[in-house]
């Protein structure tokens, strides 16, 4: 009896030790720790990249990840491993707080004519930063007197590219008021294309907030939106991120976290500001 020989290369497998080794490495690089329950999710993506890069096994792929100049493969893997689920006007109460309480507080203290700087991190595919831009245009009269810079960053370069394109599914825009939809979007097949003027009002950049070198350039923000990111970090990475965000803020600048996140469990650096619409965190004035 003749044997049918398969010429397909064997599918690499990830051992428990390799999973742990990778998990520690990825944590060190991104602050994101995968629990044992995420093993299938992680293994599947690792195996996919091992095959795609032509590596023989985990060992050679791991060496590529660690020593590749420029870190392109690490970036690819980060893009695959991160979660990017959001939509326009998510947690809208914070945008209300932005125009009704936070920005009035910021401009009341302002002693210069420099633009108000807002940072959204993570940007995901841009829905949050663009929501802010539209909200300011529609609901903040102060925009007639003040310039605003909106910068939005993500560790995932695919998401940044998607954000710059500004094309969204009906699900992503389901909470956008009809008149805003008509004003700022056009239909492209089943999707919605955001207009150029809103897209140009946001600058998208790549940034890993767990990386001290990446964070060095992010300074002097009046307000940071960092929502639903810290929930993916462990305690230590959360604390390190809160401290890094602290230095990205101007004195008395504000930080908005997601509704399920609380700074009181992360760091004591910030003071709580209770506005009628939302609870936010404020960097105190600092004595030298």
């Amino acid at each position, binding site marked *: 009896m003749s044997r049918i020989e398969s010429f397909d290369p064997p599918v690499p497998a990830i051992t428990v030790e390799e999973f742990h080794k990778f998990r520690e490495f990825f944590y060190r690089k991104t602050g994101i720790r995968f629990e044992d329950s995420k093993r299938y999710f992680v293994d599947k993506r690792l195996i996919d990249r091992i095959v795609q890069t032509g590596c023989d096994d985990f060992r050679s792929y791991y060496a590529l990840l660690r020593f590749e100049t420029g870190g392109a493969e690490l970036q690819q893997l980060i893009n695959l491993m991160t979660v990017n689920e959001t939509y326009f006007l998510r947690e809208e109460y914070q945008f209300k707080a932005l125009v009704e309480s936070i920005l009035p507080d910021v401009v009341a203290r302002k002693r210069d004519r420099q633009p108000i700087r807002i940072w959204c991190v993570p940007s995901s595919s841009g829905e949050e930063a663009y929501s802010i831009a539209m909200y300011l245009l529609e609901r903040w009269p102060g925009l007639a007197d003040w310039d605003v810079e909106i910068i939005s960053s993500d560790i995932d370069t695919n998401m940044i590219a998607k954000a710059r394109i500004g094309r969204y599914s009906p699900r992503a825009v389901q909470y956008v008021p009809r008149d805003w939809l008509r004003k700022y979007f056009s239909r492209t097949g089943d999707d919605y294309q955001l207009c150029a003027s809103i897209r140009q009002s946001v600058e998208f950049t790549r940034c890993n907030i767990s990386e001290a070198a990446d964070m060095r350039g992010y300074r002097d923000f009046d307000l940071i939106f960092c929502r639903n990111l810290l929930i993916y970090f462990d305690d*230590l990475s959360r604390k390190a991120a809160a401290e890094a965000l602290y230095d990205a803020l101007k004195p008395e600048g504000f930080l908005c976290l997601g509704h399920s996140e609380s700074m009181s469990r992360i760091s004591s650096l910030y003071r709580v500001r209770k506005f009628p619409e939302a609870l936010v965190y404020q960097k105190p004035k600092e004595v030298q």
Partner: protein
Amino acid sequence: MPLRLACERPGPAFALPDAVDSSLLAGLHAADPAARRRAARDLGSDPAGHPQSVAMLADRLVAEQQRSVRDVIVTAMTRIASTDAADALARLLDHHDAELRGLAAEALRQMPRALRAIMPRLLSSASADVRIQAISLLDALPDGEAETVLIAIIKRERDVNACAAAVDLLSQIGTSAAAAPLRRLRVRFANHPFIQFAAELALNRIGEGS
């Protein structure tokens, strides 16, 4: 292209660690707290590149008065998580400044591997205060280890407060293995009502009460 000797190059081919360390050291002592935090963060994120990082951070931590800078220094040392870092933090466990003691204990709790390595030294410290702090950190060790150590402590520890700290933790994590040692402890400290009360409570919690 011909090779150029190092001495012919217009500048150094690579940054000397000493030079980097000295600039970060200057940052750690800058007047601006933001600069001090940045330097601490840089040292914590690349310990391999800065062999003196733990010593530099530890020295600054003791001198530092700003809470925000202290926090970042402690986070940097926690991220380094080496035995040296744990050792430096452990030296603060009996510091006169309560905030530093608290920060050090909190940080050690988050670096269980390094904590485990220095735990024998802490538990045999001449200072009862340090031993008590160390006992309160035992539950940060990997599962199952703490109870064995706690049982050993209540068998030989002479300081009543250290024993009380051990009994307190045993009441939370102890199993029936701790029952006999707890009963012997009650005998050893028969004249200390608090030990009688705490040991009884622990025995009840682990289902071995009288």
